[in-house]
């Protein structure tokens, strides 16, 4: 099996799905990169180079867009209701504020408002997270904003294998999907089969088995949680690390089963705490797994602040393996 980065895995998913299904189209700012410009035709292939090589093969099924997120995200949604399977890129998740209506009031609600008579198979690819000193407006997590909204699905891969399988699933899925990629892990490598495969939504992945405490998290934080678990294993504390993979639908069964076994839960989220995915998971367990809990739920999140620019400050903003490990210890000691 070939080693690939997340970047490559997503690119391969696009290649394979575009080849398979002619209704798949891609759009976004600079995803070809260079439309109308005098130089190289496919100069950028997206701000992160995700699309490199696709334009050469699929030509006008890729579209560069003007800087008009409401219009082009809405156009992707409109096209989806008319039989296409568009993947639109919202370059940074932080930009949701200029196009959120199209996502949460239009795409998310069509099927319900129209009495079940619509389907909107659109994927919105976006990049989230801190760690590149991109400051307050280019570093947010914001996954909870989408997860709150009935009618959309929220996907958040942590590794190349999942990135490919979940992207293929997202494209084939008939509901609107927000596909969130952490900007720090594009170059994370892992085994990725060449053939097409998809990963069903709503199935968490137990990335590490353990009997002492359940750590539930997603995206980049999975890596931090695994680091913390390594640290703790040295002291004989065995963590079960649950990679949620999709935030909506959420695999509550796997979380609850794990807590049934461990009796302890720590939720980890790069977002600030209030109304976060961390709070959501904690609340569900406090409701449905309360009798299994032997200690307070631990929550490791960013503080209730914007993301600071200074790398020194940003380091303290993002939950670290140390903080996760400390929280696990506190929970076990409580």
């Amino acid at each position, binding site marked *: 099996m070939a080693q690939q980065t997340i970047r490559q895995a997503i690119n391969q998913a696009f290649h394979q799905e575009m080849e398979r299904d002619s209704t798949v189209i891609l759009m976004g700012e600079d995803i070809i990169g260079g439309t109308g410009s005098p130089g190289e035709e496919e100069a950028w292939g997206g701000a992160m180079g995700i699309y490199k090589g696709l334009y050469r093969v699929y030509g006008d099924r890729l579209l560069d867009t*003007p800087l008009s997120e409401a219009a082009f995200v809405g*156009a992707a949604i409109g*096209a*989806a*209701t008319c039989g296409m399977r568009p993947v639109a890129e919202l370059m940074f998740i932080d930009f949701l504020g200029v196009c959120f209506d*199209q996502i949460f009031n*239009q795409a998310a609600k069509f099927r*319900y408002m129209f009495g079940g008579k619509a389907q909107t198979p659109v994927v919105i690819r976006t990049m989230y997270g801190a760690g590149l000193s991109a400051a307050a407006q280019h570093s947010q997590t914001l996954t909870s904003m989408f997860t709150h909204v009935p009618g959309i699905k929220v996907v958040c891969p942590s590794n190349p294998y999942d990135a490919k399988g979940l992207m293929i699933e997202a494209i084939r899925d008939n509901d609107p999907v927000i596909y969130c990629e952490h900007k720090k892990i594009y170059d994370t490598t892992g085994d990725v089969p060449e053939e097409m495969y998809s990963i069903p939504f709503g199935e968490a992945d137990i990335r590490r088995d353990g009997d002492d405490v359940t750590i539930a998290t997603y995206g980049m934080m999975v890596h931090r949680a695994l680091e913390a678990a390594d640290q703790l294993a040295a002291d004989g504390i065995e963590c079960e690390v649950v990679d949620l993979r999709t935030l909506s639908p959420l695999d509550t069964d796997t979380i609850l089963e794990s807590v049934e076994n461990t009796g302890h839960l720590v939720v980890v989220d790069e977002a600030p705490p209030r109304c976060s995915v961390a709070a959501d998971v904690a609340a569900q367990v406090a409701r449905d797994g309360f009798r299994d809990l032997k200690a307070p739920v631990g929550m490791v999140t960013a503080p209730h602040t914007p993301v600071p620019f200074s790398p020194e400050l940003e380091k303290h903003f993002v939950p670290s393996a140390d903080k996760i490990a400390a929280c696990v210890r506190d929970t076990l000691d409580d």
Partner: protein
Amino acid sequence: MSNDNFPLSRDELLRAYRTMKTIREFEERVHVEFATGDLPGFVHLYAGEEAAATGIMMHLGPNDHIASTHRGHGHCIAKGVDVKGMFAELYGRATGTCRGKGGSMHIADLDMGMMGANGILGAGAPLVCGAALASKYKKDGGVAVSFVGDGASNAGNFLESLNLAAVWDLPAIFVVENNAYAQSTSRDYAVAVDSYVDRAAGFGLPGVTVDGTDFFAVHEAAGEMIARARKGGGPSLLECSMIRFYGHFEGDAQTYRAAGEVEELRANRDCLTRFAQQVAQAGVLEQADLDSVDREVAALIDEGVAEAQQAPHPSEDQVLTDVYVSY
């Protein structure tokens, strides 16, 4: 207008009249029924504006899409959405177009190319760009038409869409239904430019203004734009200046309007009266033709309301269905 080179056939004229009359009677009846308190929610009536929806939709077929506004009944009817289903929807019944889950502001019928009324102003314009884009890929010759009011013509999602449609050279038409008010606020206050032709030009789009109470004027201008778009000639903007007969929504006392304004407009700029005069003058339809349509329409409206009032409410489990396709 002379009979010989009259732009529409007798059948077309009857169809146009039937559509306009159906919209009018639908709205007049909703007005009456709303006052009884039986109709839930917010209702915005299209009465007085019928010629615009009708003149435009006459050019559209099932491959063509429209996205409507909060004032959507007229667009629905003109695009062929079933009137009885619409009444049932307004009453929130299980037999409604959207099974009672959408209501007046969200009637949609994708099978008829009707992408929905919309509670968010301007939000239909991006969707129409998408429908037009899909037609371009599918090469099905479809065009897509977005409706906004004068108020919504200041909304960012609409303005961005004008640019996007031009950049992508989409088969899209942007219709501004200028009825001089956005709620209580005057168009002259809120829209900074005098002519929508200039606003269109700001995005490289050809724009035309017509008297939206003149069915034939709308029909002709829309016909040219739609034909051009169908042939790959790109998007354009059509302003229809028009008249709102009722308040912004049912319940609006309209004290922002001049005394006697509505009465005067109803007397002198009723698009249905005008149509009747035009076809009579040209000798293309008889009063008897119109009368017989009127009877048909009246019967349909009566039946529609009666059936809706008898129709079952959705069952409680319907709260939880239709959120996702997959579960």
